């Protein structure tokens, strides 16, 4: 049981979490605001100190170029000041970057935990409309993509603006005319920006994103359907589709790049050091030859002038990352903003475990109703079998009981209390379920069975496993009940379903919801499910999506569902007598059953003849 925490203390953390969820990203950053401030301040100091060696060269130049003897002491003082400045820069920028990355580290963990918490509260129904891959990407890659936002932006972006500003002020004091000339490349670069933002460019960028999406989809299709792809003529179709997607994408990319590259190249040219130096030198030569500027005054422009282009370069350079980060934050927020199914402020304890559905309607999306006015009572101590064609709403109906969704209209009551009024922990203690889509955790067998009962007695776990007909198989595993599933051993679909059944049996809840399709994994599982249905009985309320005709025949009540409505409802005998939909269904499939029963009789005879 060590691998999974007991559930105690849940309340305390959850209320804090509730406060954080819904407000998005900001609360997660708030505890780090002083660290961010430190990152910025250290970075500014470091960056400004970085100007010292350049100024030292300038001062050296003034000392050397001034007429008269050179003041040795002054020269050495300037040299030392430059060296010290470099050292300060090293220490401060390193510290800033170090702190920034560590904060980023903490924030990423906080983001991921918050996302896990948020996902753990989102309505189960919400997941059915998302792909697991997409959500995993949010928790993993999108959180990582926030990195530049936190680790780099605050320090580096500020420095990219503060240093040029300081340089600019200094240069103005030296010579305002040459300062203006030095700014020419910056102005030229900024003039390029609107060219990159024209509607045509933006459209091309959107097309680029879209065609990249098409590629991803066609690859998924290609890979997922590979067996089909291969078994039908070498996969021409999917392969062709992939190639078309590639051609489209490359075409879009090329168009975008071709249109953009002259502009980008122009921008890079005017920002390149040789060009800036050329501009400064032309201006300097003009001013010096006309005698209106001292030659030594040219030096600061040669050294600091190049730095003036930094903000433009930083904007261009960090832009893509920043935009990617912003998009990632958007996706993270979207997940954090998902409203959990509301928990009752004043939970009411259900009395007993009679289940009642009152005029229940449900739609996954819009007004396409999957359930259209279901009225149904499940009495304790009875088995209710649901039958109906696929798409009739069976799966949706049974999933309302463990509150995977709330009905869009009407209500589901347990022990006379609306599910929405019942504390979710209490609800899960009362309702357990076995559906077909079993997912085992990469944890020990015991942990997997005892998932709902954290401090289960090992004997109880074994008893549940025996009942679910999986005990013997577990003993065959390398480390028996301690075997980690997925690492030390793989289980087949049927075996996984028996583990899930053991899980439900151990939970020992008074209401059991079961999808009998589970039983068809293999004969052992079928036996286990039958065993469960027979043994459990007692006072339990059992609702089963029936697949086997025996189950239907043995049920206390049969509900025939069609198009989201109950078309027939009663005991199997009553329904047969009524000669309606159920009777028709029964007759049309009895032949199949007869087949099966005949064969089974053969089995038994074989047994007996032994």
């Amino acid at each position: 049981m060590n691998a999974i925490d007991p559930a105690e203390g849940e309340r305390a953390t959850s209320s804090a979490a509730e406060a954080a969820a819904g407000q998005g990203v900001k609360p997660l950053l708030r505890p780090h605001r002083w660290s961010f401030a430190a990152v910025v301040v250290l970075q500014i100091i470091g960056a400004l100190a970085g100007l010292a060696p350049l100024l030292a060269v300038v001062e050296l130049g003034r000392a050397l170029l001034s007429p008269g003897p050179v003041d040795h002491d002054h020269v050495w003082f300037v040299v030392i000041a430059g060296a010290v400045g470099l050292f300060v820069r090293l220490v401060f920028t390193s510290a800033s970057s170090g702190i920034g990355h560590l904060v980023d580290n903490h924030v990423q963990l906080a983001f991921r935990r918050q996302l896990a918490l948020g996902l753990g509260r989102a309505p189960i129904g919400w997941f059915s409309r998302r792909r697991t891959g997409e959500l995993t990407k949010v928790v993993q890659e999108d959180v990582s993509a926030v990195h530049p936002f936190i680790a780099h932006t605050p320090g580096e972006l500020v420095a990219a603006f503060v240093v040029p500003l300081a340089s600019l002020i200094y240069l103005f004091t030296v010579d305002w005319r040459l300062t203006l000339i030095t700014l020419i490349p910056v102005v030229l670069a900024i003039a390029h920006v609107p060219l990159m933002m024209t509607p045509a460019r933006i459209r091309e960028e959107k097309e680029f994103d879209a065609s990249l999406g098409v590629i991803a989809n066609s690859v998924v299709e290609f890979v997922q359907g590979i067996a089909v792809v291969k078994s039908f003529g070498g996969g021409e179709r999917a392969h062709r589709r992939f190639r078309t997607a590639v051609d489209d994408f490359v075409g879009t990319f090329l168009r975008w790049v071709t249109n953009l590259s002259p502009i980008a190249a122009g921008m890079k040219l005017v920002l390149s050091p040789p060009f800036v130096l050329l501009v400064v030198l032309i201006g300097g030569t003009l001013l010096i030859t006309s005698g209106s500027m001292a030659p030594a005054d040219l030096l600061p422009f040669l050294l600091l002038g190049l730095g003036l282009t930094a903000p433009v370069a930083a904007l261009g350079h960090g832009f893509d990352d920043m935009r990617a980060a912003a998009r990632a934050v958007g996706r993270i927020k979207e997940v954090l903003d998902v409203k959990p199914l509301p928990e009752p402020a004043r939970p009411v304890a259900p009395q007993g475990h009679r289940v009642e559905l009152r005029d229940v309607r449900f739609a996954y999306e819009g007004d396409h109703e999957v359930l259209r006015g279901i009225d149904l009572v499940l009495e304790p101590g009875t088995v209710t079998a649901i039958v109906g064609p696929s798409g009739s709403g069976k799966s949706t109906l049974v999933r309302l009981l463990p509150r995977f969704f709330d009905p869009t209209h009407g209500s589901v009551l347990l022990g006379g209390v609306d599910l929405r009024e019942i504390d979710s922990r209490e609800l899960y203690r009362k309702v357990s379920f076995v559906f077909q889509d079993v997912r085992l955790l990469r944890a020990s067998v015991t942990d997997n069975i005892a998932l709902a009962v954290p401090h289960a007695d090992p004997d109880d776990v074994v008893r549940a496993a025996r009942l679910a007909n999986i005990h013997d198989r577990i003993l065959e595993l390398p480390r028996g009940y301690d075997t980690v599933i997925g690492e030390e051993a793989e289980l087949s679909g049927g075996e996984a379903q028996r583990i899930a059944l053991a899980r439900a049996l151990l939970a020992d809840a008074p209401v059991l919801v079961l999808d009998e399709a589970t039983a068809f994994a293999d004969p052992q599982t079928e036996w286990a499910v039958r065993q469960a249905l027979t043994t459990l009985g007692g006072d339990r309320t059992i609702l089963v999506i029936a697949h086997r005709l025996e189950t239907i025949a043995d049920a206390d009540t049969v509900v025939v569902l069609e198009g989201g409505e109950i078309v027939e409802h009663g005991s199997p005998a009553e329904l047969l007598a009524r000669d309606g939909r159920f009777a028709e269904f029964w007759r049309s499939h009895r032949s199949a059953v007869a087949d099966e029963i005949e064969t089974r009789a053969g089995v038994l005879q074989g047994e007996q003849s032994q």
Partner: protein
Amino acid sequence: MIRMLLRVLGPEYARAMRRTVALMTVTAIAEGLSYALLVPVLRELFGDTPSNAVPWLIGFGAGVAVCAVLRYMSELSGFRVGTTLLRGMYYRLGDHLARLPIGWYGRDRVGEVSVMASRGLLQAMSVAAHLLGPFVSAMVTPLTIVAVMIAFNWQLGLAALLGAPIVALIQIWTARSIASTDAARHERDKEASGRVIEYLQAQPVLRVGGRTGERFTLLDNALKEVQRAARRTVLSALPGIVGMTLTVQAIFTALLVLGAYLVLGGTIGAAEILTILVLAARCAEPLLSLSEMGGKLRAARAQLARLDTVLRTEPLPEPGRPVEPRHHDLRFESVTFRRGDRTVLDDLSLTVPEGQRLAVVGPSGAGKSTLLQVLARFFDVDAGAVRIGGVDVREISTQELMRRIAIVFQDVYLFDGTIEENVRLGRPDADDAEVRAAATAARLDEVIERLPGGWEAKVGEGGALLSGGERQRVAIARALLKDAPIVLLDEVTSALDPLNEAAVHEGIERLMAGRTVVMVTHRMRTVKSADRVVFLDGGRIVEEGSHDELLRRGGRYADFWAISMAPVTSE
């Protein structure tokens, strides 16, 4: 890195790549050389007759212009090569993926490959388009400048040159230490992703136990591990970055001190020393940007390595002289197949005469599905041979083999298109009447009638908009249309409700008629229609015979069915 890039690219693109790198190098050298002209310009400007600088300045201007043209050319060439590469790589990856054995495609491969084929490839190829240019110029330009410095003053130039090996050493050392922590981090990331997927998919059950958010320790631990690994990466990168900055700054300081010493001693003129210091400042910046670029290069490199692994995975060999089987009887001759160190099929022999039906029954993990997979050559066997009409499947071309086999799986994958498109996949040149006939035979017509849009109804990604039984019917119609002489069925009716099962069963019967069939099943009804049954356990045939024979024998096979008949004990 470059070597891996060239290998991934393959010989046809490698040359264009090399040309681009050469062009970038020339550009960087030209930029460095153009700075040489700064020396005379500044000497004149700082001297007595500043106007003498003008011709030199014009020279410098010309130099800058040449650099600009070269730079534009190399950038354009980078983009061109990058784009051609991108298309080529996509094609190469696509072709390769199509040739890889189906067995290679495990469950987690889907996600991995699709990320690789979309963003991963783009990131790897961005090396050519965006990173290589700056990287080359950050390395080459400073070196050229140092050469220029040596030409003008050997003491200062030499002092600057001393830094080169140190910078190189630090680069290499940092790359190594980061590579190891990066690998660890990637491992943790993968582990955490697995846990996130598990957490998402197991939500319903986890909630029952109140294990959400931090209460679900398995996930939380994985997330904390990711954090620790990331912190280790940061810490291991820090000495490199600090060391790099320290070295570059130390060299600059050394030049400053040495310059001051030389100029005060009168060995060098004021203009020269100032010019050299301006040049030195020019060197420092690109060098410092190297460590920043390193991070991006590493990310691209990791993608490249993943791409390299996939591209180096061998597809199943195609026969040099393909043979066409004349008959369609099936034979396994002492077939052994291993997955990792587990023997899935163990010296298995069996035959299915043409036109007969064989049912394969057995407990989970007995190797039933694998038997079908080696027959369709999703994998090659480790020992023995699988023969169709006496011809080893490895002697038959993939296309020919696939033309002869129709497979229906338990999980049917449909392409995101209309029902008609999906059925037609069975035989693209079939006429409408044939498609309709196949649909009717598979009882797909009922489904089509019910769906809004009928034949034109979209089935959604993977067929998600249809129920399991409906997807089965599409798959059966597809197989009927294909009209292949061999039919393989894998647990086709296992998870269907009675209504669907009856319909699917009917379709299956029509599909099997007159064909050679191997079916894995545990529905007794299906088994009974087989001519012969083999009971498989642990990769071996335990029992073999007709259904009735085996039942009478009262062995493993009879036991297997008995359990589903056994009376349930009540506690």
